[in-house]
């Protein structure tokens, strides 16, 4: 316990520098801003804004990225409540009761309880991250190549199963991602692989480029299909602070949401989305008046919002302790860390304690900033909601181009973004969700390496490789998950999830 406090104190000493406070604030504000704009989720936001962090030191850069991440989450909830347009999948359920509240003229209260719930859940999740990080990273140091391989397999399996849409199609996307990770020159021998003689592919696929194309540009192409429909935004937001009765009504929901979210977030897979759905179902089950859900029940906002925020923070745990990103967004954050010379993994806590604890405490601080700075700014965010899309999307296009060019000063990167934009849109039209592709791209290299390493070290015996009990358990778990996902009842559940989105 005293250790924990000492660590948090170290973290605060890092965060409370002028530069880092400023970066955290900028991250939260810019994240919210872009999260509020329709059609850009946190993933695209981080991809677009990553270059902004290049001039900061590693800790500052990650703090800012983290700020963008939950700022975007928060922005997504704002649009969900005000105009019934969830900025991303984890605030889909928020829209159900949140927008209903807005129609009743209680938009301010919905926003207020979402922010307060998120803050409480965030504070709790920060403590959870701080508490489990050290034991988990100690554990990770003992993991063999085989353990890592099976752990990654489990994570990828969960990512496919918990994602939306057809399992088979998600599997296709994942495979393509893993194959893309193998493209390029071997870092030891320099031998070019799957480059088809092209110099451009010699360095492999850059994750930021792929993400920006598949999610940033493709999203714009999707939105341009239909004639522009201006969202109706009511200027009357109403009082922001929930009254005593509201607080009493939502206290339980916030508590349950925080717990649920913190746990689900640690498990690989899309924790934030899953936890918000789970929390909504749970609240409806425990409520004495389940019939009010969907008609403006405050618990239906408080629970899922707390849950997705807690989960959003604990998704950092696998990345920072095991080096394994469990969502595409985390993969991008991991990529940014590597870019700043900090390779995510069990060593981060020991080698960069100031960075690690700085990031953990900045999560809490970021949540606080979102409550005390963003709520009063709600009027401004509402104005941004009214920016017409025909002016917004050329802006995003130019930002993407300038942003991606400034990463490596490589004109071909810009051309690749264009190509992946078309590919992403094509996949969307063919109803393939490219999220697993990005995860495959991130983990593919590690997957091959750990498999090869495991086999070299076990002298080619698959049995020695597999016989490690932990490896067996993890592989078994993956198998069970795949089989159960194929069973009729669960696949129906997934269908419902997909349709809601």
């Amino acid at each position: 316990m005293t250790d924990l406090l000492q660590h948090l104190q170290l973290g605060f000493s890092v965060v409370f520098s002028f530069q880092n406070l400023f970066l955290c604030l900028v991250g939260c504000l810019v994240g919210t801003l872009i999260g509020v704009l329709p059609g850009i989720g946190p993933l695209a936001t981080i991809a677009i804004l990553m270059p902004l962090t290049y001039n900061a030191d590693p800790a500052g850069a990650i703090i800012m990225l983290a700020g963008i991440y939950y700022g975007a989450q928060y922005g997504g909830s704002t649009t969900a409540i005000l105009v019934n347009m969830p900025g991303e999948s984890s605030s889909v359920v928020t829209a159900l009761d949140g927008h209903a509240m807005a129609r009743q003229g209680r938009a301010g209260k919905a926003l207020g309880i979402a922010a307060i719930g998120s803050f409480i859940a965030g504070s709790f999740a920060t403590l959870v991250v701080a508490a489990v990080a050290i034991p988990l990273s100690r554990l990770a140091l003992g993991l063999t190549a085989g353990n890592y391989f099976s752990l990654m397999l489990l994570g990828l399996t969960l990512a496919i199963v918990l994602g939306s849409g057809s399992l088979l199609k998600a599997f296709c996307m994942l495979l393509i991602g893993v194959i893309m990770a193998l493209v390029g020159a071997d870092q030891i021998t320099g031998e070019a692989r799957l480059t088809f003689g092209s110099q451009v592919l010699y360095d492999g696929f850059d994750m930021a480029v792929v993400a920006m194309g598949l999610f940033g540009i493709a999203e714009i192409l999707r939105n341009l299909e239909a004639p522009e429909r201006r969202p109706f935004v009511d200027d009357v937001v109403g009082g922001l602070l929930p009254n005593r009765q509201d607080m009493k009504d939502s206290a339980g929901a916030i508590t349950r949401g925080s717990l649920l979210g913190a746990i689900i977030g640690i498990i690989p897979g899309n924790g934030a989305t899953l936890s918000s759905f789970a929390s909504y179902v749970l609240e409806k089950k425990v409520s004495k008046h389940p019939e009010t859900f969907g008609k403006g029940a405050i618990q239906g906002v408080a629970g899922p919002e707390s849950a997705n925020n807690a989960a959003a923070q604990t998704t950092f745990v696998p990345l920072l302790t095991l080096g394994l990103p469990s969502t595409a967004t985390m993969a991008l954050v991991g990529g940014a860390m590597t870019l700043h010379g900090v390779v995510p993994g069990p060593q981060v806590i020991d080698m960069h304690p100031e960075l690690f604890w700085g990031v953990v405490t900045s999560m809490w601080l970021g949540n606080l900033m979102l409550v005390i700075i963003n709520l009063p700014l709600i009027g401004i965010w509402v104005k941004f909601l009214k920016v017409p899309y025909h002016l917004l999307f050329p802006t995003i296009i130019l930002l993407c181009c300038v942003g991606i060019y400034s990463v490596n000063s490589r004109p071909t990167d810009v051309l690749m973004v264009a190509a992946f934009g078309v590919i992403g849109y094509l996949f969307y039209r063919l109803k393939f969700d490219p999220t697993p592709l990005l995860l495959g791209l991130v983990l593919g290299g590690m997957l091959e390496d750990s498999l090869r390493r495991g086999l070299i070290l076990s002298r080619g015996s698959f049995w020695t490789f597999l016989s490690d009990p932990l490896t067996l358990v993890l592989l078994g778990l993956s198998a069970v998950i795949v089989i159960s996902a194929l069973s009729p009842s669960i696949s129906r559940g997934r269908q419902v999830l997909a349709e809601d989105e």
Partner: protein
Amino acid sequence: MTHEVAEQPGREPVPPYARLEVIGGTTIIGIAALVWFGAINLAVGTLPNFGPGALPRVLAILLALAGAGVFIQGLVRREAAFERFEFALRPTLVIMLAVVLFGLFIRGGDFGLLSTPQLGLCVVGPLTVFIAGCAAPQVNLKELLVLAFGLTALMLVVFPDLLRLGIPPFPAILQNAIPPALGRETALRIAYAGYGAIALVLYLVFVRPDRRAA
């Protein structure tokens, strides 16, 4: 944003070749074939030390199988018969043109088939915004012009000046003609101030009267 146009399945059954999943499955199988072809010359190696060609081949086979699965679903599943593949070609082409132009001319260079000169953000920026903006279903050229200059000015402030990222602001010819006495930084500042002023004037002359009228 809504996708009503595209999402409404037609009442009429779709012929097999135009079905969504049939095309999707074929695409995946095509990618698998490409990967297999690319891996032909790579060594497979042995189990204790497998070569660079091993995993691509295994994955290509798995991908082909999964693609075949999607293909078959498209033929067999009842709902699949109503899902037609659609693609909005015009906005896609316009947006691609905008982004590709940016890539080709921002710094210029040798792209195999063609060599391009450096035009810099001053020229490429407004072009990209303007062309991209033409992808919208309804285009307001006046507003777009204001946006093109205003945004480029903003980008020039943020990226080369504030963040000091090495993005070329000027065309190559102009860059070398800047007198040393002036210096590039001053030239840059003059450029974005000028662009900002253009945007403002255009706004006052074109857009505001229109808004008032409306």
